[in-house]
């Protein structure tokens, strides 16, 4: 599990951008989506999630806004920008190429 986490870590940005490509979302929802999609194999820590959001926001890939929840804590929603969408496409292509390369080397 820990080795897998290390391998995945470099792709956290792309994973989050990928989720936001489908619409606005907030921290917990994104994390839950990752968990469900990976059959409970992978999950991000809150602190990692937060640093990733800030990094993407500073890079102009995403923007955030606070929700209007009546009860409990407010949620911070994220929305992908045009720059983020373009960056996601590039990263997706990069990953496809890398995957093919590694597959041809490790089998």
């Amino acid at each position, binding site marked *: 599990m820990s080795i897998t986490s290390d391998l995945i870590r470099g792709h956290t940005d792309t994973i989050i951008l990928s989720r936001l490509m489908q619409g606005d979302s*907030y*921290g*917990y*929802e994104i*994390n*839950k989506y990752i968990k469900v999609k990976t059959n409970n194999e992978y*999950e991000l*820590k*809150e*602190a*990692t*999630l*937060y*640093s990733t959001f800030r990094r993407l*926001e500073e890079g102009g890939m995403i*923007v*955030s*806004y*606070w929700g*209007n929840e009546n*009860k*409990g*804590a*407010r*949620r*911070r929603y994220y929305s992908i920008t045009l720059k983020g969408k373009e960056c996601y496409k590039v990263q997706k292509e990069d990953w496809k190429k890398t995957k093919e390369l590694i597959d041809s080397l490790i089998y």
Partner: protein
Amino acid sequence: MNSRIKKYVDELFKYAPKSRKIFEIKEEILSNVNDNYNDLIESGIDENTAYNRAIANIGDVEELIQKNTDILGQQEEYRKKSGIINAIAIGLYILCPVPVITLQNEFGVILLLGIVALATGMMIYNSHMKPKVITIDDDLYDEFIDWKSSTNEERRVKRDISSIITTLTTIIYFVVSFIFGNWHISWVIFLIGGLVKKIYFIWCDMKEDNKYESK
């Protein structure tokens, strides 16, 4: 909101600087952990296990706090630098009559005005160099930010006008004294200058109070 989770997260941020950014980090993490907890409870897990699992997923908050404290360091640096600039400017104000006293001619006056202009320039430069805290736009704090930035801007203008009044007072004092040669009485101009400044400040405060009340 689960009070145990809130207490735990509060504890994590106990020693973090009380800045807006830190507050936002805390809010977001708290909201995520709470959502996680509620989901676990709904799936039939008992409270204790749910609490422990939700807490375990927070990760390294220390690093986050550390990263966001750097901005405060920047402000600290400005504070030190601005203290030095202010001290030099005030020193120049105090020393400005020296050329008049020693040279006893027009050059002395020109030099004096030059020094005063330099000192005023330094003070105005200083007030404009104050680092602005970069914040992310959001709905939650829009009002707060509006209020804060407007008062900051007003304060800056207030400071600038105040230093302009000081300079003008000094200039008027010397011009009047040299033209009329009434050195024995012309110092009154400084009192008038101070009075003008005070009236301006009171007027500013009244304007601010009115704005606050009308909100």
